[in-house]
């Protein structure tokens, strides 16, 4: 049946692949599989590949549904309902190890696909999502039927989405993962080749997959794929044999594995050691946060908590251990890296560390600015936590208190926020090198600014410190309901 149901919405990022598309209906996510993809889908399901991948947690499970109208009955073969990932994150929000894990998972899936006579037809980092300390492929339609002799069609994309940014982060600067925010289809290889230091050429995998790859792209730019040559080579048995493809995957894998980055020396990774809280005050702060979370989380069975400025996630874990789906955001890639490694070591559930600069949060990106959602579009959260954060935004970034309150009131229904006064040595440090222009930066000024956008529910001074914790309810989100 064709549906003119206005509630059916095609996903704005789902247009590149003609195999099918995502759509939502009644808050549920579905994927239409087109007739053109019938053979591939059947092979995925019948060869045992789907079962293997799902069992190993590498592919998102789905169910076939019959009672959902399709958007276009002339093209539909099946409609499936994939399990939903609680929060969609993007490669420019991942730490080094997250991107590296996503790369290795992609290669692992490709190897398993080859064992079942299939091959990945794309290797987009956006097809990988994280939850419960694991990386999973969310695009069920990423597989094509493998034909012996055929090269890996997603090779270029793999190098752009994974190899290039990881090499740049490892060899040049960790902050270069932000190039992924500019280049939606991965870092162009000529740019990566130019930015990488000379010694990267001494490593075969980087020489081959980035530097020579970039040179080959430049040389053959705009020229058609030389099918004759390929056919000749294939007839001679010298095309992309299965063994050659395995060799290529081995080389990519050892290349990715050899890239490493140690989180040290960046801004906040040592922050807990530097903080001027006494042990007693720190425990008191933890107790108060837990108490506020308790009050707010009871309202919802699967609450979502965004911890902004989470550092290595100490306070995020108070939320995640209470069963809340917790996003642990921080601006510092070193803190996020440590946080992520901790989630993996302990196989933690309900927590996802992500890199986020709150003074310039992830925007809406891609075609028509609709392919990748902004931070705000992925909300609102049930609870936003902003602990030891206000002074950084107001004093380092000159954000007026009312502007900060207005934005936070849109991000979450509840807010647990800590006010750090000027007398605090952390604030003194920020003010040391500049004129104090912040005349309304005091407890009363803070209360006045936030009262415009929030109802202040509770206020507690953290014992043995000069800081205050507030529990507030957003008036913007609640008045709108």
């Amino acid at each position, binding site marked *: 049946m064709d549906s003119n149901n206005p509630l059916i919405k095609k996903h704005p990022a789902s247009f590149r692949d003609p195999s099918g598309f995502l759509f939502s209906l009644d808050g549920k996510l579905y994927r239409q599989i087109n007739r053109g993809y019938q053979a591939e889908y059947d092979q995925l399901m019948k060869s045992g590949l789907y079962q293997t991948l799902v069992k190993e947690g590498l592919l998102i499970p789905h169910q076939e549904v019959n009672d959902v109208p399709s958007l276009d009955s002339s093209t539909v073969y099946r409609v499936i309902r994939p399990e939903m990932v609680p929060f969609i994150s993007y490669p420019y929000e991942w730490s080094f190890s997250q991107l590296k894990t996503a790369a290795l998972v992609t290669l692992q899936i490709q190897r398993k696909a080859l064992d079942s006579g299939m091959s990945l037809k794309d290797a987009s980092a956006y097809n990988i999502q994280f939850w419960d300390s694991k990386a999973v492929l969310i695009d069920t339609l990423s597989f094509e039927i493998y034909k012996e002799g055929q*090269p890996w069609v997603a090779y270029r994309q793999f190098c752009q989405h994974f190899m290039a940014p990881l090499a740049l982060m490892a060899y040049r600067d960790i902050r270069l993962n932000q190039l992924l925010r500019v280049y939606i289809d991965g870092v162009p290889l000529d740019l990566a080749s130019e930015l990488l230091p000379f010694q990267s050429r001494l490593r075969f995998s980087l020489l081959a997959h980035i530097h020579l790859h970039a040179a080959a792209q430049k040389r053959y730019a705009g020229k058609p794929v030389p099918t004759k040559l390929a056919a000749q080579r294939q007839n001679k048995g010298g095309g992309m*044999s299965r063994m*050659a493809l395995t060799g*290529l995957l*081995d080389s990519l894998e050892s290349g990715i594995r050899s890239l490493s980055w140690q989180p040290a020396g960046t801004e906040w990774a040592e922050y807990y050691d530097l903080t001027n809280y006494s042990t007693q005050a720190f425990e008191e702060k933890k107790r108060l946060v837990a108490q506020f979370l308790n009050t707010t989380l009871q309202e919802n069975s699967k609450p979502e908590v965004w911890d902004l400025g989470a550092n290595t996630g100490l306070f995020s874990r108070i939320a995640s251990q209470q069963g809340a789906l917790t996003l642990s955001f921080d601006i510092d890639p070193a803190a996020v890296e440590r946080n992520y490694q901790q989630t993996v070591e302990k196989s933690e559930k309900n927590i996802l560390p992500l890199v986020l600069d709150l003074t310039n949060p992830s925007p809406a990106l891609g075609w028509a600015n609709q392919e990748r959602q902004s931070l705000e579009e992925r909300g609102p959260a049930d609870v936003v936590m902003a602990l030891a954060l206000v002074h950084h935004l107001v004093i380092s970034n000159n954000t007026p208190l009312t502007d900060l309150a207005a934005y936070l009131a849109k991000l979450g229904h509840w807010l647990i926020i800590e006010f750090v006064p000027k007398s605090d040595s952390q604030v003194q440090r920020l003010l040391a090198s500049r004129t104090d222009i912040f005349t309304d930066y005091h407890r009363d000024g803070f209360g006045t600014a936030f009262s415009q956008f929030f109802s202040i529910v509770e206020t507690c001074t953290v014992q043995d410190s000069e800081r205050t914790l507030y529990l507030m309810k957003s008036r913007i989100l609640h008045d709108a309901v």
Partner: protein
Amino acid sequence: MHFLLYLDPGSGSFLLQLLLAALLGGAVAVRMYWKKIKGFFSRSSSSTSSNEEITSVDEQKKDG
């Protein structure tokens, strides 16, 4: 050779893969034969259980 592709693999990327194919495929072949030779000698000197063989293959993979 005709491919039904929705992603442009890129002419340069395509050619580089063919170039690397010979080299990297060769490496896989060498590794496989080396494994066989090693397996032959380890089998003749001591009877290795199949489980141990899998472990040694895995270890080699990690090294590779």
